[in-house]
């Protein structure tokens, strides 16, 4: 069993990694030297941070990489205790079969500041036996002392033609019947996120025999959070209570993330501005509010509360005023 394609076609070696050429060249130098400093990979989702870390560990540590590689997801285990216990017990032992050990800490920006300070200690204590690879979306959320202990690698969104290349490769391996238009469509929706691109591709492949632009469109709209249109419409209509209730339903029951909601709301108002449902002055005011909400959510506030506050901004041309 190969699992979903995101896993099946995850690059196994550094050479296979797509779209991060500068980073890969430097990392391969480390492999040749047989030594590496602590690394930090920053960049948006789906551009290959985790893939690169695993591939690097394999090439760096050789045959016994599994025993000498610890992968921790800081989002799910972000307390100080987890960091201390897991990392300590792992670092204490000397590497066997490999030159040193590697700890890969994914999504470090979701760790509390306290935990990050604890981590900094661990990074200093075990320099002889272990190296760290940290990954995060926003390096601004990482405390300076950690940043200064790492060589920082910025991962960039994967370029369109590179996504196309990868999709074509998968399509060929899976013997898919896919049009060029469909592939370009995927690239458009993926926004540089290769994981999303591959997921869209596989989802479309399960729907019909031929994958064309329309089937991509269908999959993408099906995968979108539901009811965003209704929420926006209700709010613009002055029904704040109704809009808020629906928003809560979508976020709690369907489990849609705040980031997704913001994106969808933005796309919805853009569409409405384009077809003239709302005039350009209202539109630009709303864009400002949406942008501010997006920022506040990423700063770590409660996404649902922020979105509820955003909905009040839509009441501006409502009948109630």
């Amino acid at each position, binding site marked *: 069993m190969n699992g979903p394609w995101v896993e099946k076609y995850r690059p196994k070696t550094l050479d296979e990694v797509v779209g991060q050429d500068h980073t890969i060249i430097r990392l391969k130098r480390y492999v040749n030297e047989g030594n590496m400093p602590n690394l930090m990979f920053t960049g948006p989702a789906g551009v290959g941070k985790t893939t690169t870390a695993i591939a690097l560990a394999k090439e760096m540590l050789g045959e016994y990489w599994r025993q000498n590689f610890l992968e921790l997801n800081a989002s799910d285990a972000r307390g100080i205790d987890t960091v201390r216990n897991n990392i300590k017990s792992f670092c204490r032992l000397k590497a066997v079969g490999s030159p040193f050990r590697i700890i890969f800490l994914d999504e470090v920006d979701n760790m509390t500041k306290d935990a990050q300070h604890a981590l900094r200690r661990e990074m200093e204590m075990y320099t002889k036996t272990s190296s760290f690879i940290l990954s995060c979306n926003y390096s601004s959320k990482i405390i300076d002392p950690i940043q200064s202990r790492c060589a920082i690698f910025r991962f960039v969104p994967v370029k369109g033609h590179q996504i196309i290349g990868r999709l074509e490769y998968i399509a060929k391996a899976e*013997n898919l019947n896919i049009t060029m238009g469909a592939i370009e469509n995927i690239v458009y929706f993926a926004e540089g996120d290769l994981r999303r691109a591959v997921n869209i591709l596989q989802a479309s492949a399960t729907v019909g025999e031929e994958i064309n632009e329309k089937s991509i469109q269908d999959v993408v709209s099906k995968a979108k959070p539901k009811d965003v249109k209704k929420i926006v419409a209700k709010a613009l209509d002055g029904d704040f209570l109704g809009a808020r209730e629906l928003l809560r339903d979508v976020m709690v029951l369907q489990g849609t993330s705040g980031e997704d909601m913001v994106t969808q709301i933005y796309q919805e108002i853009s569409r409405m501005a384009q077809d003239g449902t709302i005039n350009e002055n209202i539109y630009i005011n709303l864009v400002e509010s949406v942008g501010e909400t997006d920022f506040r959510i990423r700063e770590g506030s409660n996404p649902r509360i922020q979105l509820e506050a955003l909905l009040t901004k839509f009441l501006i041309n409502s009948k109630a005023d």
Partner: protein
Amino acid sequence: MLWTEKYSPKSFDEVLGNVKIKDELVNWTEEWLMGNKQQCMLLIGPPGTGKTTLAHLAAKEFSEYIELNASDKRSYEVLKNTIGEASLSKSLFGEGLKLIIMDEVDGIHGNEDRGGTRALNKIAKEGHHPVIMMANDPYSKRLQSLKPKCNTIILRKVHTNSIVALLKKICIKEGVEFEEHVVRNLAKRSNGDLRTAINDLEVIARGKDKITSEDLDLLSSKDNIINSFDAVRTVLKSKNPRRIKDAMKVEAEPSLMLEIIAENIPREYEKVHEIQKAYEMISQADIYLGRAFSTRAYTYWKYAYELMSLGVALSKEETYRKFSRFNNSSIFTKLSKSRAKRDLRDRVAEKMGEKLHASKKVVKEQFPYMEIMFQNEDTAYEIATYFDLKDDEVKLFRSRKIKVKKSKPKPKQELDQPEGLNGVKAVTKKSKKKQVKKSVKETEDKTKKPRRNKKTVEESKIENKKDKKNPEKDAKDPQKSLFNF
């Protein structure tokens, strides 16, 4: 000995208030003892109204009793084994009657106590033994099916005067001097909960010979929710900074206060710009809560409190003179209702996250695509097997069970393609599909085996193992195995 125990009624005669209910229960007990089977008894009422006391008084009349409460695990099996047996088999002793007391039946947990409600229903229906169940929430969903099968009795909050009388009696017996208003205050703040009232009295009076109003300050109010609502009311109704600051001195989590204030802004404020401004304050307060959490600098809380209280209060032009009904935030109901689903989502995300090298959050973002992929039988099977998803976990992505179309050894193909397994791998989904269709057509008329189609993933795994052990058998019957593709 705790005063609540010490002064709990020792017989039905001593029970305060609830005369009708008392009589009914006495009657019920007597009927049972005379050998007349009675309906199961369901006592519903808020805490501290005497449900457990009544049940224990009844228990005294019976030779034996079993008691289960929320701290015991109460799945279907557990209930059936402990109670079911008691309720079905005759006791060896005495009258042969075993009283079963089930406390907090509305607290039977959907997930951990799987089937608990079902078992209760069964016991209530067929029970040969007397059963008394207790619950707090008369509108609990778990009670809906139970109620018609039971003799349901609703207990009301104990009247303040009755509580005052009892507290005085205790004071006298303990030799504690008291001021009338102190006792009355204790009774009032207990909000009809006799147990709380007695406990509070014990806190301030035990070992002393006098209680005064200063002693009352010792007690932190138990009922934060009630207090929170008072605070919210003040925030929304007033513009007076001092009053608001006073009201906000509640021992509630700031995030909880934030939710309740936000919930009620649009219920009180009518002008759009007021709502906008107030919600902007909520948003700012929330930002400080977020900062406090991520930096562990809880001194930020004070800004959050000011913004959500005075900030919201000053967002209105003038105070409204109207009656408003304030609600608790619907988010709490939504969260508790969806808990099972969210738990399932978390569990699956964690399971998948291990193999996908991703956090739960990242995995959940892929769920919408998974849902689409799972509509396809083959892909669903492949992914479910890869992540080792159980049937109930598959339900997250599709409502139907996965029909099994594949089985591992493919003797027919091995014959056609001598490369063996590698060759099989190379075969694409589409060509497989065609083959399936073809083979279905071929076999449909001759050997109808519709049963195989209904198999679940789990069954098919077993099937696969069997097949592996016995490949020759399948080789002899290529049509059969093709049918399984």
